[in-house]
């Protein structure tokens, strides 16, 4: 069963996404989201895929990626799936791509683009 981490969304979206992913049989967990644990640093390498909200300020995932587990020391490289309306092009994305991490974006709703 694939492990998925849901990061950086508001609480409502987090719960809804986790519900949908679990219904499809995935082992979904919530990572740092909203204010409560926004500064928590989460190790990403136990996961197969990390879904994160790329439209919001994403200090949580950014810190986790750049400071705690910088990509090269990961025991596995999860796929990073960013959900966004507007592309921000963060610097860490290019660093991670160079290390072989797959970073993909998807729009939450095509009508909103």
């Amino acid at each position: 069963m694939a492990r998925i981490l849901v990061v950086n969304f508001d609480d409502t979206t987090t719960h809804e996404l986790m519900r949908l992913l679990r219904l499809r049989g995935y082992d979904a967990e919530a990572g740092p989201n909203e204010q409560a644990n926004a500064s928590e640093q989460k190790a990403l390498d136990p996961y197969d895929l990390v879904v994160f909200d790329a439209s919001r300020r994403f200090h949580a995932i950014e810190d986790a990626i750049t400071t705690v587990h910088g990509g090269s020391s990961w025991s596995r490289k999860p796929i990073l799936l960013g959900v966004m309306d507007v592309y921000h092009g963060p610097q860490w994305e290019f660093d991670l791509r160079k290390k072989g991490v797959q970073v993909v974006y998807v729009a939450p709703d095509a009508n909103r683009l």
Partner: protein
Amino acid sequence: MSHLMPIVYKAETLLFEQSRRVSSSFRLRIIHRFQSEKGKCAPGEEVFAVLLLVGGQTSYMPLPLAQRLLLDYCAKHAFVGQSASQIAAGMRTPFYRRHAMNSGEPIRRSISRSAVKEYVRRIRITFSAVLERQGITHSPLDILASEKGEGNEVFYRLRIPADWIHKGENSSGLIFEKEIHFPASLGAKQDS
């Protein structure tokens, strides 16, 4: 339909593509020796060595006997998840009970249900070490996976294909090799 479904579909597609990439680029090669009859995999042979093939590179996996046997069993039943009890039961078949008997010096090891989890953990450590030596960052969990069932049971499943090479001596004393590809569905038949 929830407006979040495109995200779920995208996640599903990415995970599927990733698992397909892994299974197409990795392969196990298992060497059996003391084959008694050319072209036939039968009880009495020894699981001599396990090699991991990644791209064009071949790496020897230094596995002790119990782990070689367990990996051989998982490879014969690749792509089907089995619980520790199922594995322990499956390894009581003649192929593993009469392991290496053709040599005249049986090398046997019985695998209990409670030991399976620990052996799987050790196999993964060996996979990690071999992949690291090759400079590949890849989780051994993607190769030998643990999958949770509805209850507490965990199913172990080898996610990569395998082939077998047989080394033995024929009646003239000549060494021969034969490569056999087992379809996963025929794995169980090899034991009978």
